[in-house]
């Protein structure tokens, strides 16, 4: 064979190989843009909402991907990884029953799955729309991979969602910083936190709803950065004279929390997955409390922490820390943590590892 022919043949193969490699980038589809449109859903049957009254009922809940109180491996209480479809539906029925009982106008949820093997591929956003009075939803994934090759997790798509009785005009996902101390492989496959923002048409008035779930396990200041970016979003929205509700699972404690570390339900021994020491975070939420109206006013919380605790991983225990929040640049009234029958009219401990939070927003 002539040298020129050799070179051409060689180049053809190399070119095709390089092309093939480029086509194969992000092979597990885990990546997001810095800013992108959120995914929109609507219920199979739209239930026309009543015209909004003077107040909107807002609800916030980390629903633990419909896992109820199954003891999963990541909490170190058990070894479960994947649920059956009947387990998922049974747990979702519990969540839907509570949501119907509260009957919120707008619901912010975290850890909701749309296409995950651990949830038998049930689209939980769509399921909740079809089994509550809520009509519309915006969804922003925070964990997406065709396959997570760890712990048997497999395919996952989990994130934050905003569900509403009223139409969603627009929604987008803003990426938050990744945990810098994670190695490249972990960063590629692990959670990518975000802020989900939706503009909702409430009877002709626009309401901006901001939902987030910040990092639980960062020790490098990433969680603080994420909370600061949330605050910047709120300031920017307020500067545009837009009424907003913002919140979610911020994975940190309010100022003035009495118990800040050594929680009895933290049984993980792997240091990377311990989230039970908040002593260095005691003032991280101070700017939010200073600038905005909180669903649970700080003075109320500091008077008695126990009434407002929202999280525990131990199904046999009781709520032992407050991680879930709602803030507004408007006026909130009647904030409440639905801890149990006496506080909310229904047991919530079996439904998720977080208790739901509700508050009424006064419409201007």
């Amino acid at each position, binding site marked *: 064979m002539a040298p020129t022919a050799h070179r051409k043949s060689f180049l053809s*193969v190399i070119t*095709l190989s390089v092309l093939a490699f480029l*086509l194969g980038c992000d*092979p597990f589809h885990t990546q997001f843009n810095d800013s992108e449109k959120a995914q929109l859903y609507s219920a199979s049957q739209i239930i026309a909402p009543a015209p909004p009254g003077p107040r909107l009922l807002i609800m916030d809940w980390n629903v633990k991907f419909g896992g109820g109180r199954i003891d999963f491996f990541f909490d170190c209480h058990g*070894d*479960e990884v994947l649920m059956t479809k009947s387990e998922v539906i049974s747990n979702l029925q519990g969540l839907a029953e509570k949501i119907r009982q509260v009957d919120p106008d707008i619901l912010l949820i975290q850890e909701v799955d749309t*296409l995950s093997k651990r949830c038998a591929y049930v689209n939980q956003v769509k399921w909740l729309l079809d089994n509550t009075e809520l009509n519309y939803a915006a969804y922003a994934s925070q964990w997406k991979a065709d396959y997570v*090759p760890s712990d*048997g997790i497999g*395919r996952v798509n989990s994130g934050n969602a905003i569900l509403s009785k009223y139409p969603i005009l627009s929604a987008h996902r803003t990426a938050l910083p990744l945990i810098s101390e994670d190695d490249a492989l972990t960063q590629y496959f692990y959670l990518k936190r975000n802020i989900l923002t939706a503009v909702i048409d409430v009877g002709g008035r626009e309401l901006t709803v901001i939902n987030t779930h910040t990092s639980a396990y960062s020790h490098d200041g990433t969680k603080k950065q994420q909370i600061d970016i949330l605050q910047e979003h709120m300031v920017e929205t307020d500067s545009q004279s837009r009424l907003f509700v913002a919140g979610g699972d911020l994975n940190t404690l309010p100022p003035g929390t009495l118990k800040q570390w050594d929680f009895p339900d933290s049984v993980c021994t792997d240091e990377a997955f311990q989230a039970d020491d908040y002593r260095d975070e005691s003032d991280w939420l101070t700017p939010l409390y200073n600038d905005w109206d909180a669903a649970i006013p700080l003075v109320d919380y500091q008077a008695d922490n126990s009434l407002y605790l929202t999280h525990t991983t131990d199904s046999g225990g009781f709520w032992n820390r407050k991680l879930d929040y709602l803030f507004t640049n408007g006026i909130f009234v009647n904030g409440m943590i639905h801890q149990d029958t006496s506080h909310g009219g229904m047991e919530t401990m079996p439904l998720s590892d977080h208790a739901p939070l509700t508050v009424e927003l006064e419409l201007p």
Partner: protein
Amino acid sequence: MIRGVLLFCMITCPVTAWGQDRILSQGTALTLPKGTWAVGLFSPLRYGLTDDTELAAHPLLFFVRPHLNVKKNWVSKGIYLSTRHGVAYESFLLETIAREGTGGILPANSQIPQLFTVSNSALATKQFHPWLTLTLLAELNLAPSFGSSDFPSMDLPLVYQATAHFYTGYSLRWGIDMEGILWNSLHYLVDLDLWWFPGHSTSWGVESKAYLLWRFSPSFAILGGIKMILGSYPFGNQQHLLPIVDLLWSF
């Protein structure tokens, strides 16, 4: 004369070779000449036991997934007709990947039975021209197992199709390969495989690949190309495009 070798196989799927050259014959009805070896970076090690009987096993995969394939040529006049028979012990690999942490493809609490794959294929190959050789394939995969079994499917392209018989008891595959010499030492291959696994919640898959192969020397070749997988999975239908590359030797 020993000539260059070929073929790449993404994880589980055997790939066809080209043409009349028996050393380059992995996916065809042709067998290696007696005493001849061929191997690739990702391809199995093959050995011509006799002129019409070939043994094959992947040298690295063998230690976690013990297996052996035998290809026997029955007709070699004008058209080549062969059968291929293989057996693999699957449990050890499945137990290895059922683990906590990184590399845990299956949950650590999976129950893995004593599981085997018994594979039987029929192959027919005819060369019409140096630039066109066709191979037809029909394959039946069986999965005899013993003991309690509770482990989820691996919903990954290639893997899902190749392991579907673990859950259904059997799967069927049909394939057609077209290959030949494009120009001088530049070869091509285009193929199409159809999977069917009746009884599964999802029941079909399609795989197709196209690659170019350059025979760097009589005993060495490199290839690069693309593999497309379209399949039904428990979460719905999905298409994947994967790069393929391999280095191939014969001796």
